């Protein structure tokens, strides 16, 4: 064998060995993935396409038309909540990058703080603040201003979602905005751009990947949210997540609930794919 050939063989051998090692290292994750992600999805699908006694059926799918309005409502609520979160989080993240490093750390911690607390507790505390006899209404009453109907309104549900998912919007925005090279803004100013033009032509396009991942991270859980809407919306709002919960909780409607969540999953998947189109061309981050 020539020297070159031997080298080729050695390289091939080491490549197969590397492949073997990476397979070995990934093995636990593959098992985990099968056991807790893929198999449960198949179970959901199996439920969705069967009746209570296990025979194949498409009836569940036909039944879904009853919940058409709830699906549409859920998407509208989620869209509004996502838009509000974006509008609030973008300036916040932008101004955060302009502060000193110590201030940035403190602000970041304040943003993350609610994430370390349980969702149920947080939602209950919001209830405490906005309910008919809550802190705000008691304050208004003591000032002689009369009480406001805040809880059990669509506004309360959107407030709850914005409050809950705000950190998930701030984090990706902050991470892209803080990476924009300040000399690019100087270059834009040097080439004749005033502040609005610098924002539109440089900051906004460069932060697009952060916007896409922030929007996805807020929109997806908002669509399927269930606890927040129950507690803050009462009977005024019936989100798809709440319906799935109540369907799955009763044995007789479990298969219908499975179909509903399967459809919701597909719709969300399509939404994400459309959104990634935006960041794709710009080489942004993918979710």
């Amino acid at each position, binding site marked *: 064998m020539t020297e070159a050939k031997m080298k080729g063989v050695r390289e091939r051998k080491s490549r197969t060995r590397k492949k073997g090692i990476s397979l070995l290292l990934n093995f636990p994750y593959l098992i985990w993935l099968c056991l807790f992600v893929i198999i449960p999805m198949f179970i959901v699908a199996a439920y969705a396409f069967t009746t209570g006694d296990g025979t194949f059926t498409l009836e569940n799918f036909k039944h879904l038309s009853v919940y058409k309005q709830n699906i549409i409502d859920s998407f509208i609520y989620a869209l509004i909540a996502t838009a509000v979160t974006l509008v609030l989080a973008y300036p916040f993240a932008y101004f955060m990058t302009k502060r000193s490093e110590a201030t940035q750390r403190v602000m970041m911690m304040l943003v993350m703080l609610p994430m370390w607390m349980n969702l149920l507790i947080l939602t209950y505390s919001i209830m405490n603040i906005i309910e008919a006899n809550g802190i705000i209404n008691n304050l208004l009453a003591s000032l002689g201003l009369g009480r406001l109907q805040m809880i059990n309104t669509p506004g309360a549900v959107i407030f709850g979602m914005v409050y809950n998912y705000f950190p998930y919007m701030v984090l990706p925005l902050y991470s892209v905005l803080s990476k924009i*090279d300040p*000399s*690019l803004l*100087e*270059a*834009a*100013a*040097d*080439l*004749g*751009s*005033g502040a609005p*033009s610098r924002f539109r*032509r*440089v900051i906004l*396009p*460069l932060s697009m990947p952060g916007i896409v991942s922030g929007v996805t991270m807020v929109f997806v859980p908002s669509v399927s949210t269930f606890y927040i809407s129950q507690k803050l919306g009462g009977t005024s709002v019936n989100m798809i997540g709440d319906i799935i919960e109540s369907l799955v909780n009763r044995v007789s409607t479990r298969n219908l609930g499975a179909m509903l969540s399967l459809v919701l999953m597909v719709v969300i998947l399509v939404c994400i794919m459309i959104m990634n189109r935006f960041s794709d061309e*710009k080489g942004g981050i993918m979710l």
Partner: protein
Amino acid sequence: MNQNQKLIELCDVSVSFDDQKVLDALSLSICDGEFVTLLGPSGCGKTTTLRIIAGFIQPDEGDVYFGSERINGVPPHKRQVNTIFQRYALFPHYNVFDNVAYGLRVKNVPKDEIKERVHEMLRLVNLEGLEHRKISKLSGGQQQRVAVARAVINRPKVLLLDEPLAALDLKLRKDMQRELKNIQKQLGITFIFVTHDQEEALSMSDTVVVMDNGRIQQVGTPTDIYNEPVNAFVADFIGESNILDGIMPSDYKATFAGHTFDCLDAGFAPGEAVDVVIRPEDVDIVAPEKAMLTGTVTSVTFLGVHYEIIVDIRGFKWMIQTTDYCGEGETVGLYIEPDAIHIMKKSEYSGKYGDYSTFSDEMEEINQIPEDAEDD
């Protein structure tokens, strides 16, 4: 182009960052169509000066004039100057065409005209055919050219260049030097060029402004700066020089290294202490019996064009460039023509630079400059 007409004027400009004075009452005027280089070591204030002209920094004291108009406080986007940034600052989300077109789009120039002018610019910088290339797919030299095109397309009256060649390798740097000079001649606009590379400054400029410590040390043509440095700092920073303590016993006479020489300088008080500069290439090696000074060769370096030898004369180590080989330890004689001797008044820099006994240390310092070249 109207040479000799003042285009930019800085009057007594001072700037401090965190209580540290970066520019100290700096005054400078730049004429229309001139190629001016601000030259100095890191932290001398040259980049700050450039950023004041661009409008990114406002002076704490003093005035900046553009033509006859005072432009203190005018934001960068309203100034008729464009900048080429040290690391180019090209927009990564745009391709070559969109980068170059940026300035015209901001000004709402019609589409057809943008297209035409961008192509004209890309032709000027030899980047035709790369319109749709992504910035990340360009080489350093190509990025440099995009930066030039992006700035020049706006037809600025003044182009500011902040160490634009620092990131390029030597060969490419030489090519770009020539090319920038050509572009400047073709366009006839003023270039203000910042560099710490004295060779670059000498070869490209009409006027060199040597700076140190936030102050201008000397303004002049490259020949003036090299042949008639005003103080030890300029003599040391531009090229190699032997700087000796001397005395002027009378006009046209200078005493140093234990010998009185004829020279061409006059106008000093009799017996005044002065700094004497002798460039290494101006010293002739002669037989010891014909010599004005004699010394021992302590080191020899072959540099291709010539030898660089260090000669110890009464404890002071001279650097001499010669094409004749001298062996280490040999005794050689030196002969210095009157026009090779340059006399300078004593200044705050006198005595700071010493002789060439610490030559290797100094080389190390010089080699470090490009790494921390970033000013302030």
